[in-house]
């Protein structure tokens, strides 16, 4: 017996009498075979969310279950792809349907015609465990795709050669006479986290090249971070900078319910940007998922699961993956919209009561892990989620529930954005709970004095906030010279260190070494100015030193000329000596 549609109301439809209806099974709805997912079962009625526009559907049309939950295709060809929320390739859709996305289009996620050169790394007769690497395919110029075995068993055959993803590359005896054909791809359910054998603590930083993050709110590989901010405060620019420059090997970028033109920008820009490490276009390591705001809302809900499942797959190959979700608020709104259509009892601000659980489940899929298999690899997923709180007020449920599960908070600030202080991440509001865990790494790789230098600078910035309150009341001249000097230094920290232009060719990325040298110079200037003021040199004289200009332009010095930043240290000394002598 096939199911029949009994009610249609927006993206949610009800069907009666689907045989074997299981929760989260994918169904095909109506004559046009629209893709949907069962999200609630009451008696013989199934409530279905449809991933496409439901206009024109009529009660009585057929509904057929595929008997399987929503899944993605995992195999070579994912990288450099541009998918919608349910892993349909947008490029393929364009070929079939033209510039506008119409309904009922069925295009496989992985190209069925493309042949890949497969090199086996295992031998016939070998015992294989679930998660073992069967062989390799060069997926892009910089990424080797490791073909993972979806089963355990004894290898009956395997052959090198050129294959499409549908070709059989070998067979596996999984015991009791059962045989499985091995292909270059397999499927995985998006709502089910891929297994691993062990999770590690976060002790390695994800270097981003953004000074405010790397210095004051570092993100660990395998960690989680949230970026809440009102519109126009630079969430997307920050996310894109992270996608561009963070030292992950694979980037999964999810545009979830956001602007179409933003995705176009990423699509245009990434192939042109060159990865500083490999010298190849950034697109070679990137997969984009776009379900823009005007695309079907149910597919938006699915998009972050699609994204994280792809990320888990590359993690299992042993890569460091970073996943950007822009924006999780839009995902939560999709949940709310569907929950509303189901007439569920609303929780806070109309969001369903299970919002907190769903958010926690999603962020928990991040982590640095030891993978399955006989020769386990180490891989990680770092999740960075943008939040768009209504009116920029983070007391709302999505922000609050996210803050409870993420460890880094990058607080974007509208007043900084208005002042064109970018990135508009506020140093006092933001925090990272990874700092202590990461300090041993910094001490070893950067400098033993890095943690104290950073803490000192942060102390000054906090002091500035206190002093500013006094200044607001009595004006700057009422402060003692020493405190005025502190304000000079903190202004320097804010403008010459924290401000960073994403559009300046050099400034857009700062290595840790450069950050260290820059901060060291500024803090050295601080030492010297305090000393000089103590010795009675006039402040206005000290603030007109020529070296100030040099400090301000430090950020524009390219990585190849690190000497020029180093030499400023001596210049500071020299100019202060002279100032004191006079």
């Amino acid at each position, binding site marked *: 017996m096939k199911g029949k549609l009994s*009610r249609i109301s927006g993206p949610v439809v009800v069907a009666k009498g689907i045989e074997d209806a299981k929760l989260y099974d994918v169904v095909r709805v109506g004559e046009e075979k629209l893709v949907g997912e069962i999200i609630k079962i009451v008696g013989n009625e199934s409530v279905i969310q449809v991933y496409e526009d439901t206009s*024109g559907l009529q009660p009585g049309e057929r509904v057929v279950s595929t008997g399987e939950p929503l899944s993605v295709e995992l195999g070579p060809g994912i990288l450099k792809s541009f998918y919608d929320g349910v892993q349909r390739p947008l490029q393929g859709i364009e070929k079939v349907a033209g510039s506008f996305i119409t309904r009922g289009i069925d295009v496989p996620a992985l190209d069925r015609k493309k042949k890949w050169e497969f090199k086996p790394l295992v031998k016939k007769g070998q015992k294989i465990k679930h998660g073992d690497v069967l062989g390799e395919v060069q997926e892009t110029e910089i990424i080797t795709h490791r073909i993972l075995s979806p089963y355990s068993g004894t290898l009956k055959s395997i052959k090198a050669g050129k294959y499409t993803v549908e070709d059989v590359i070998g067979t596996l005896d999984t015991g009791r006479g059962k045989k499985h054909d091995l292909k270059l791809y397999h499927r995985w359910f998006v709502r089910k986290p891929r297994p691993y054998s062990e999770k590690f603590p976060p002790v390695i930083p994800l270097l981003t090249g953004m000074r405010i993050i790397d210095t004051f709110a570092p993100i660990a590989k395998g960690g989680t971070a949230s970026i809440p901010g009102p519109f126009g405060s630079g969430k997307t620019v920050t996310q894109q900078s992270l996608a561009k420059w963070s030292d992950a090997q694979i980037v999964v970028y999810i545009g979830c319910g956001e602007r179409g033109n933003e*995705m176009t920008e990423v699509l245009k820009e990434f192939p042109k940007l060159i990865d500083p490490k490999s010298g190849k276009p950034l697109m070679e390591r990137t997969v984009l998922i776009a379900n823009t705001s005007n695309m079907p809302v149910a597919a938006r809900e699915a998009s972050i699961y699609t994204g994280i499942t792809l990320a888990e797959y590359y993690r299992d190959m042993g890569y460091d993956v970073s996943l950007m979700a822009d924006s999780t608020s839009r995902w939560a709104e999709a949940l709310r919209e569907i929950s509303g259509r189901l007439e569920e009892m609303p929780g806070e601000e109309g969001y369903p009561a299970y919002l907190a659980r769903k958010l926690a489940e999603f962020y928990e899929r991040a982590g640095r892990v030891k993978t399955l298999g006989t020769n386990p690899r180490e891989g990680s997923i770092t999740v960075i989620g943008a939040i768009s709180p209504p009116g920029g007020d983070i007391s709302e449920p999505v922000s609050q529930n996210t803050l409870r599960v993420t460890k880094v908070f990058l607080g974007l600030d509208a007043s900084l954005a208005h002042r064109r202080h970018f990135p508009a991440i506020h140093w006092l509001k933001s925090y990272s709970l990874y700092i202590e865990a990461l300090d041993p790494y910094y001490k070893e790789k950067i400098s033993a004095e890095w943690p104290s230098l950073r803490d000192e600078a942060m102390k000054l910035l906090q002091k500035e906030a206190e002093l500013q309150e006094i200044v607001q009341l009595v004006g700057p001249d009422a402060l003692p010279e020493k405190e005025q000097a502190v304000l000079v230094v903190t202004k320097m920290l804010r403008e010459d260190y924290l401000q960073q232009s994403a559009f300046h060719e050099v400034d857009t990325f700062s290595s840790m070494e450069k950050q260290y040298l820059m901060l060291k110079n500024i803090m050295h200037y601080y030492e010297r100015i305090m000393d000089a003021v103590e010795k009675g040199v006039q402040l206005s004289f000290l603030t007109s030193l020529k070296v100030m200009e040099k400090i301000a332009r430090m950020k524009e010095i390219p990585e190849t000329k690190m000497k020029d930043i180093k030499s400023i240290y001596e210049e500071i000394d020299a100019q202060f000596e002279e100032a004191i002598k006079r």
Partner: protein
Amino acid sequence: MKEYKTVSQIAGPLIFVDDVSGVGYNELVEIILPSGERGKGQVLDISEKTAVVQVFGSTSGLSTTGTSVKFLGESLRLGVSEDMLGRVFTGLGEPRDKGPKPIAEERLDINGAPINPYSRDEPRDFIQTGISTIDAMNTLVRGQKLPIFSASGLPHNQLAVQIARQSKTKDQKEDFAVIFAAVGITHEEASFFMRDFEKTGALERAVLFLNLADDPSVERLITPRLALTTAEYLAFEKDMHVLVIITDMTNYCEALREIASARQEVPGRRGYPGYMYTDLSTIYERAGRIKGKKGTITQFPILTMPGDDITHPIPDLTGYITEGQIVLSRDLHKKNISPPVDPLPSLSRLMNLGIGKERTREDHRGLADQLYAGYATGRDLRSLSAVVGEESLSNVDRKYLKFADEFEKRFITQASNEDRSIEQTMDLGWELLSALPETELKRIKKEYIEKYGKKFRK
């Protein structure tokens, strides 16, 4: 075509029709009143037995007996053709100017379909509006959606017509069209626009859809979609550059809330439905450029912020979808600064695509940032000097104060017919910046200060 006389319930703009079959979701409906009057509606919810129909127009005079309902078997469509240029239509797409109904070349679903993000092309052609605050600091590009956030009593309409009149790109010969959708505005406001379009001769290249304040509010959900369907046709089939002005989106959102509450839906923030973001995006996202097509759609929605509150759901959700915003300020308006565009909260996200070498000028980015920073600092210092007095400010701070005043007087202020070229605007910016010490100009590359700024420094 099926006709039913089984209306069982009428609630606000919704009617419930029983015992229907073969009716599709979103299908268009014709309603024939007992008096013989005809109206239109759309299926909002359909189950095996009952169809819930949203009526466009007034439901007064409807009764459960004697009203018949015809299901038309397709969703709401608009017949489009090039002949629509120069014509005025109602909020439902019927001629309003006593002319004949244009012969349709194509009949298009007014809901359109989402543009495939892969098929989009980056907006990049700089549009010169002749208004300094926009051109220099919130540059508009073709294919952008840039709303005006206004408030009641502010001159947003004057600004909109000035933009419509003065907007131009480098290559002037291309075909352009203006589409104007009035959503729940007053007769007076509508005739202001019409008069201006007539006076400047823009009407020939314009299509107007008018849903006025006394027209049924449900129609407001249709009007912007008619405008955008026409825009898509003219842009992507007829290669025109289309500028769409929609005013006032606040009325649209009010209508959305009205329908949602009539359907007894769970309300979201301030009573607006939880899907308002998605709904608004199906309007705003219908702007842009498509690869391989010549035409473009640029959108200028106007909305009034209830209670001047930018965090109200309407401006808030709009700001999250659109590519920036032009914010009008009551404070500036009170100081008689016109147009009262406040550059600080205003933003154009696509600015960088349209400026720089070969587009405007290489110093554009730095200059814009410096003007922002300077004006922001000046405004901060104003409140400080109000407390401690100007004398206790440092010399540099006093220069900033002066800069902010001059900036408002000379840069923001301009006459409603003053059309400044981008060069004039940028030189004016440099001239104002010359009041600040050169060491303060940290946002601009040194070479540009030498090249463009030096001549204004005395």
